[in-house]
């Protein structure tokens, strides 16, 4: 289900020393599992990360290194660990596109933005799928890490990998950027379980914090380190041979020694040598020099560049990934594409990335060095360039990149504007951590003085789960709004509404989600393009639709959900689609439109299944919808099963679902004759709602259901009390009216029942919380019959039967028990169109009347040990605690418990307690 951010993820970019590479694009963050239903990671995967960089620059093929990689990838893990500029990426890219790897190669270039389990694994899976190693029937095809990253994912991944027909090489480049513990644990898991078809290649600047020792000892680890990557004299000779045949062997040796075979240094040396009038002298001088190679040679190389190229290099090095277009924006020229292509060919400072090869990336080290030159030469120019880059990104809607550049340019006004404009979207997509990080890079006094920013700062408090502080912030909002000028007020109001809605979602305050959400959607159309983008809009619509559903406003809910579904499809937000479909299924079930509910529910679950989300909270609605359909079609086994899955999928966080499941379970128990059980269930549901205020209608539905059950259990006073507690709480929804009508009938008040049903039947009462029209008509028939209005009774029954037959509804008749049987029998003649159905129902009804919970009985006497354990059963102690108390093993306790259940003829602890009490064993 869509929801607010509630991430407690650590900020993804460390900027204290500005050293981490910035994330290359907007990438939303998922939420944490202990929060209510959440939004999905945006699926705009950056293709440039998934292809090995390539270069037209002539490389020396070093087959000894290829051999090392060949051998290494026969094992689980090959670690390529060496400092910056050692040539790791170049080597791996070349090897990957050769014929040597033992299977298809999946490539992933990592950066600091991947420090998040969902993001990381989503990319890893995408890489695997692209490699061609995944056959169409493999679960890897559709597997996706859930928002909240549950732990079922990793075992599924490992086993799916093990089933691949061929080995697959997964190259993870720049692993040193990954510091997140969960991601590393996931890698550790894969390494521990070592699916034989997986061949991991990790390229990094620092040895990763993984259990390498163990793998080394067991012969599953191969290493390629700096010493391996260092160019040998022979290789240096080859490197120089083509361009500088004039150098002697001694020169080559000297050069190798001076650079220590360091690839970056050698590359720079080769470039510096070009056009040197006296190469030998150059090498000798270099050898006798202590200057840092990279520092010195970069200067040399720059100096040798023609003016236009030099200027190009200095201006474009401020961003890492470039297209010709962006380069032009930075240089003011028109030849960006050709310049980049030339750069790639002539000196390999840039490599192409992405399959269309139109994007380029600087070698990180060179870019860094170029930036120092730039800063030295044109200190003011750096900021100006960042500003231009920011503008370019902003125009293309690349929000996070734009903001980052604006911050680097120290353009606080511009950055603020962008942050505020895109803030709500980031929040709704669950990317509040990124937002917080960005806001944190603004000067503190600016943040405090700006109402919009201050409010965004409150997202921090929502993210950290501090709702009181966040609410306080929102309360001062109206005064803050006064400080803004006209045009910003609209946007400010939108922000306030969005955050109120997000906050309310966290605490399951559905009425507020609804109010604030609708306000936001209304403001959205006023604010226009400055407002929410597609993704965020889809999330908001799904949120508001869901809240409306549970508040009982079914028409509103349908509107929002139906609007949100295509937006979710367009934005490719898979889990949001599942959520919308599930909720729509449930909506139709609430209206008694069983066929539609079944269809949508099945669709939702199929979609969920495909992505491996079958047990996610987004699918819960779908399960529940199907459960209700099965219930009404009298397939109690399936109804029970689906109810269980709905409960499992929604967990404890999503209260409305828990409540609805409880109501269904109570009905199921009653259908099976376990009246006592059904009362337990609803009473427990009512009591479990501590700290949460359910929406009015939902609450009333529960209370009336309990009242009806109590009445049926011969507790008229409780029933009455419950019913009275909700008189006058406002108009009834259709479903509530039905329950109330049943209650009236049970109390012998057919007139009351008929009056209550009137609004259902004439369509003035909004449907909701389960009004099956057939049921309403049946009850009306019963009421009319009791009032001796036989004409109306016959007409109502006729209507009920035709509706029921059409929808496959049976349960309503069975639930109405003996009075319904009698009615059917007596009116059979008057409803000729439905005779066969009537007969079916009579038959089923007679059978169901015989179903009762067997009276408590003792099949066999309990042993003394079993008696001991039995005494513990009423308590809240777990079996482990009981075992500890008795100084026996857990198994022993369980065995005794099973014995108790068998001898009492029950299937569970609670039933055992009840039976035991009735038999006076306790």
């Amino acid at each position, binding site marked *: 289900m869509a929801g607010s951010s509630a991430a407690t993820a650590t900020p993804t970019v460390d900027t204290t020393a500005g050293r981490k590479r910035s994330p290359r694009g907007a990438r939303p963050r998922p939420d944490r599992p202990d929060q209510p239903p959440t939004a999905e990671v945006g699926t705009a995967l950056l293709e440039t990360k998934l292809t090995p960089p390539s270069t037209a620059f002539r490389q020396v093929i070093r087959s000894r290194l290829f051999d090392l990689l060949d051998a290494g990838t026969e094992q689980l893990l090959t670690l390529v660990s060496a400092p*910056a500029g050692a040539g790791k990426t170049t080597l791996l890219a070349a090897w990957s596109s050769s014929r040597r790897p033992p299977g298809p190669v999946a490539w992933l270039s990592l950066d600091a933005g991947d420090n998040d389990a969902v993001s990381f694994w989503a990319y890893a899976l995408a890489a695997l799928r692209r490699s061609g190693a995944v056959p169409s029937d493999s679960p890897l095809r559709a597997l996706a890490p859930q928002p909240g990253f549950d732990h079922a994912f990793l075992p599924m991944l490992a086993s799916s990998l093990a089933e691949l027909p061929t080995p697959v090489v997964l190259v993870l480049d720049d692993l040193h950027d990954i510091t997140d513990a969960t991601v590393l644990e996931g890698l550790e898991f894969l390494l521990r379980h070592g699916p034989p078809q997986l061949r991991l290649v990790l390229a990094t600047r620092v040895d990763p914090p993984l259990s390498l020792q163990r793998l080394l000892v067991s012969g599953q680890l191969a290493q390629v380190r700096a010493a391996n990557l260092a160019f040998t004299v022979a290789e240096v000779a080859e490197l120089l041979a083509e361009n500088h045949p004039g150098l002697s062997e001694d020169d080559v040796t000297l050069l190798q020694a001076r650079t220590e075979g360091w690839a970056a240094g050698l590359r720079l040396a080769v470039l510096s040598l070009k056009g040197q009038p006296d190469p030998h002298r150059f090498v000798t001088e270099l050898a006798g020099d*202590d200057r840092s190679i*990279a520092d010195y040679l970069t200067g040399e190389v720059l100096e040798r560049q023609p003016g236009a190229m030099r200027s190009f290099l200095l201006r474009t090095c401020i961003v890492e990934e470039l297209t010709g277009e962006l380069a032009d924006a930075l240089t003011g020229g028109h030849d960006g594409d050709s310049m980049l292509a030339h750069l790639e060919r002539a000196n390999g400072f840039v490599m192409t990335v992405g399959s269309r090869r139109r994007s380029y990336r600087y070698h990180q*080290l060179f870019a860094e*060095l170029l930036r120092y030159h730039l800063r*030295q030469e044109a200190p003011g120019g750096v900021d100006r360039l960042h500003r231009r880059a920011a503008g370019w990104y902003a125009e293309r809607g690349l929000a996070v990149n734009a903001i980052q550049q604006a911050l680097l340019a120290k353009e606080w006004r511009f950055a603020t504007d962008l942050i505020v404009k895109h803030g709500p979207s980031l929040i709704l997509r669950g990317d509040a951590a990124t937002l917080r990080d960005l806001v944190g890079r603004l000067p503190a006094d600016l943040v405090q003085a700006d109402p919009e920013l201050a409010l965004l700062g409150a997202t921090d408090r929502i993210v950290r789960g501090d709702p009181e502080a966040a609410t306080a912030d929102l309360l001062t909002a109206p005064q803050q709004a006064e400080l803004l000028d006209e045009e910003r007020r609209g946007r400010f109001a939108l922000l306030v509404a969005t955050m109120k809605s997000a906050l309310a979602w966290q605490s399951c305050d559905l009425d507020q989600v609804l109010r604030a959400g609708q306000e936001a959607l209304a403001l959205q159309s006023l604010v226009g393009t400055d407002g929410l983008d597609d993704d965020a809009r889809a999330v908001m619509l799904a949120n508001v639709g869901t809240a409306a559903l549970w508040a009982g406003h079914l028409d509103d809910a349908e509107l929002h959900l139906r609007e949100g579904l295509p937006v979710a499809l367009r934005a490719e937000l898979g889990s949001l689609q599942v959520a919308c479909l599930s909720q729509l299924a449930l909506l139709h079930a609430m209206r008694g439109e069983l066929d539609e509910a079944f269809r949508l529910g099945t669709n939702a679950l199929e979609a969920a299944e495909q992505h491996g989300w079958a047990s996610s909270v987004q699918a819960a609605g779908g399960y529940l919808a199907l459960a209700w359909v099965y219930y009404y079609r009298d397939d109690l086994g399936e109804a029970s099963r689906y109810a269980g899955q709905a409960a499992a999928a929604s967990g404890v966080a999503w209260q409305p679902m828990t409540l609805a499941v409880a109501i269904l379970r109570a009905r199921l128990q009653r259908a099976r004759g376990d009246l006592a059980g059904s009362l337990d269930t609803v009473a427990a549901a009512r009591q479990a709602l501590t700290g949460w205020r359910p929406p009015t209608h939902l609450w009333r539905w529960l209370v009336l259901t309990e009242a009806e059950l109590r009445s049926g259990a011969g507790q008229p006073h409780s029933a009455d009390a419950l019913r009275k507690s909700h008189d006058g709480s406002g108009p009834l929804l259709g479903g509530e009216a039905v329950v109330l009508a049943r209650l009236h009938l049970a109390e012998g008040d057919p007139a009351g029942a008929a009056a209550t049903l009137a609004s259902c039947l004439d369509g003035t009462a909004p449907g909701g919380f389960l009004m099956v029209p057939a049921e309403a008509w049946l009850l009306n028939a019963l009421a009319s019959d009791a009032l001796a209005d036989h004409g109306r009774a016959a007409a109502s029954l006729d209507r009920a039967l035709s509706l029921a037959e059409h929808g496959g509804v049976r349960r309503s008749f069975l639930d109405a028990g003996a009075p319904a049987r009698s009615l059917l029998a007596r009116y059979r003649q008057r409803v000729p169109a439905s005779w066969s159905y009537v007969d079916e129902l009579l038959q089923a009804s007679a059978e169901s009347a015989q179903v009762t919970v067997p009276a408590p009985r003792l099949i066999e006497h309990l042993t003394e040990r079993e008696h001991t354990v039995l005494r513990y059963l009423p308590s809240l102690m777990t079996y482990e605690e009981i075992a500890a108390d008795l100084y026996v093993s857990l198994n022993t306790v369980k065995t005794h418990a099973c014995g108790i259940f068998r001898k009492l003829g029950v299937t569970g602890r609670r039933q055992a307690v009840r039976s035991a009490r009735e038999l006076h064993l306790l």
Partner: protein
Amino acid sequence: MGPTIYQIVVRGELSQRYVVAFEGMTLTTRDGKTAITGPVTDQAHLYGLLGRVGDLGLELVSVNPTLEPA
């Protein structure tokens, strides 16, 4: 107690251009090595500086707190 003065030594003599890489620190070269010296606020700051060294492909020789400025 203020920040500690650290001296980070790397191999290779760096030009003053690198001062921007190590803000707040002074660079001095001697005997084929460069000393990057200056006040370091805390461990996070220190690791950040060391990270820069790595990013620049420089060889780290030593890291020492010192009581005297370089």
